[in-house]
């Protein structure tokens, strides 16, 4: 204790008397922080607050009434349905792709890594248009699908397809670096100890990447529920049938139903904040585990 206070007693004045080369004058520091905070406040916090203020403008009763509309309920249900299909699909795809890329060497590996990123670089609207081109009544596969009695575009399958496309990279992108860093040796040992492929996967591989996986699924889910562009193109905006929450917000807004639009928007915003909160908690945990894993 004595020693500590003595040391800090010495170092504190010396730091003031000889400011480091990287130490900025106080005024610069304050200005920079103010600009950063002001920017975040203006462009991020204010709109978020505005969403909730607008949603509750006519009171709590009006808020819940507008959420209780049949169209709003249908939109919420549809959004949950689409996410419930798209996220597991991308979970399976993401784990498979990450596994293949991290644990095996094969031709076309770098091409696969590039392709996984494609949905990030392509505008979602184009993704939607491509699906229309492929599956619409006059599209490439349209007639065949129609004769089989299947409708993809302007129906739920189209919404799922578009959402899967857009949220394709999230899980894989989270897993690949973690799996690559961990290498193959643990799996090799597991197999040599008599484990089957499935046992190795569920007892060794999956527990090793669980935080990255949960994190990827969260981001994937947030995007799946919030996607607008690609979904808008394939949806057809049939009220109560093919309208997801983001589309419902737009429809209500165009109808000058501001309270309704912002009420639905507040749900999406709430989801975003929840995702952020869970992500932050996970990062604590995940960070601590990563640090522990790397301590050699």
């Amino acid at each position: 204790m004595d020693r500590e206070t003595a040391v800090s007693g010495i170092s504190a004045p010396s730091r003031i008397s000889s400011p480091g080369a990287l130490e900025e004058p106080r005024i610069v520091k304050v200005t920079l922080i103010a600009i950063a905070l002001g920017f975040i406040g203006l462009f991020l916090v204010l709109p978020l607050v505005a969403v909730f203020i607008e949603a509750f403008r006519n009171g709590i009763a009006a808020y819940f009434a507008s959420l209780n509309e049949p169209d709003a309920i249908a939109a919420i249900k549809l959004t949950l349905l689409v996410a419930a299909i798209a996220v597991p699909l991308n979970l399976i795809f993401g784990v498979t792709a990450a596994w293949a890329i991290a644990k095996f060497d094969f031709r076309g590996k770098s091409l696969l890594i590039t392709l996984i990123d494609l949905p990030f670089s392509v505008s979602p609207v184009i993704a939607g248009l491509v699906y229309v081109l492929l599956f619409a009544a006059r599209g490439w596969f349209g007639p065949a699908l129609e004769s089989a009695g299947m409708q993809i575009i302007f129906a739920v399958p189209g919404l799922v397809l578009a959402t899967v496309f857009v949220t394709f990279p999230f899980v894989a992108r989270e897993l690949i670096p973690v799996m690559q860093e961990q290498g193959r040796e643990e799996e090799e040992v597991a197999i040599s100890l008599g484990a089957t492929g499935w046992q190795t996967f569920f007892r060794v591989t999956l527990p090793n990447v669980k935080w990255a996986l949960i994190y990827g699924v969260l981001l994937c889910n947030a995007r799946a529920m919030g996607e607008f562009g690609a979904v808008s193109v394939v949806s057809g905006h049939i009220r109560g049938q093919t309208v997801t929450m983001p589309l419902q917000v737009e429809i209500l807004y165009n109808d000058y139903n501001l309270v309704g639009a912002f009420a639905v928007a507040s749900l999406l915003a709430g989801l975003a904040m929840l995702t952020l909160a869970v992500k932050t908690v996970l990062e604590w945990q995940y960070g601590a585990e990563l640090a522990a894993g790397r301590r050699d």
Partner: protein
Amino acid sequence: MSLIVEGLTKRFGAHAALESVSFTLQRGGFLALLGPSGSGKTTLLRLLGGLEHADGGAVTYEGQDWLGVPTRERRAGLVFQHYALFRHMRVADNIAFGLRVRPRRERPRRAEIARRVDELLALVQLEGLGDPYPNQLSGGQRQRVALARALAIEPKLLLLDEPFGALDAKVRKDLRRWLRNLHDRLGLTTIFVTHDQEEALDLADDVAVMNEGRIEQIDSPQNVYSHPKTAFIAEFLGGSNRLRGTVSGGRFIVDGVALPTNGARVPDGETMAFVRPHEFAFAGNGEPAIPATVTNVLAAGSTVRIDCSRQNGEVVEVALPNGARPPQIGEHVHLKVLVHRLYPAQL
């Protein structure tokens, strides 16, 4: 009842990692695969462990076609340089893994597994350390956990890939004596890969020296060291100096000095002599000796290490027992060659 490897071949693309490797290992034997990096020793180990597929050749173990046995049924205990412990499992769960993944009818009862784990922890001198996670242990402890995990499946073959490579010198030495004891006590059949010749010579019954995908010599440590079959081994082991000269008329001539060939059967012509640092001595008057100039003297340790520059500028390393008067830098000396090994020079 032994491991018989015949003509084992492995290619990675155009590169031949193993070229027709053959050897026999008796049950209970302790074989070291020694060689520089890229010599194929790890590939050979991984083939035996079932982690790579052979492109050719055959392996028989206890009368069984070993390469035909699926990896998970081979019961080959693997230990890697960086331990490869299951990082999310406690030590006890790591060790129990091989027992728990068995099909239900072969799986021991829970209490039996716990008993086995305690036994193995005691065996590797980690009593009571079943609860921590691997990253809470030291390197030496982790490697012993990895060994206990491999021993849990009662391996037919213990395969160690540079098991002490990541440990510091003191721990490394202790652990290798301990490993040798364990091997003898449990009657294991062990193959281990190393690039550390001291480790290989100290630990193994037999040493296979590998170079460019081939086994150049497989022999007792003593024989490999004293009677290296090839120029590569002669240079690789013991930090040998290389002297290029000519053999003619039963003499080896280097720097204009004729040395006896000591009965070595080498054809006349360009010849390479390999001399370990302690196989030089300062010559008395009249003895045939190589003239050189002292360029550096390092007198710390049990020997004095002296760098001498020959007439052609090549530096040879000489080691003398500490206690003799060390020469001064710049001094002209005459080096007598006590022992040398001669090999025809390759073009």
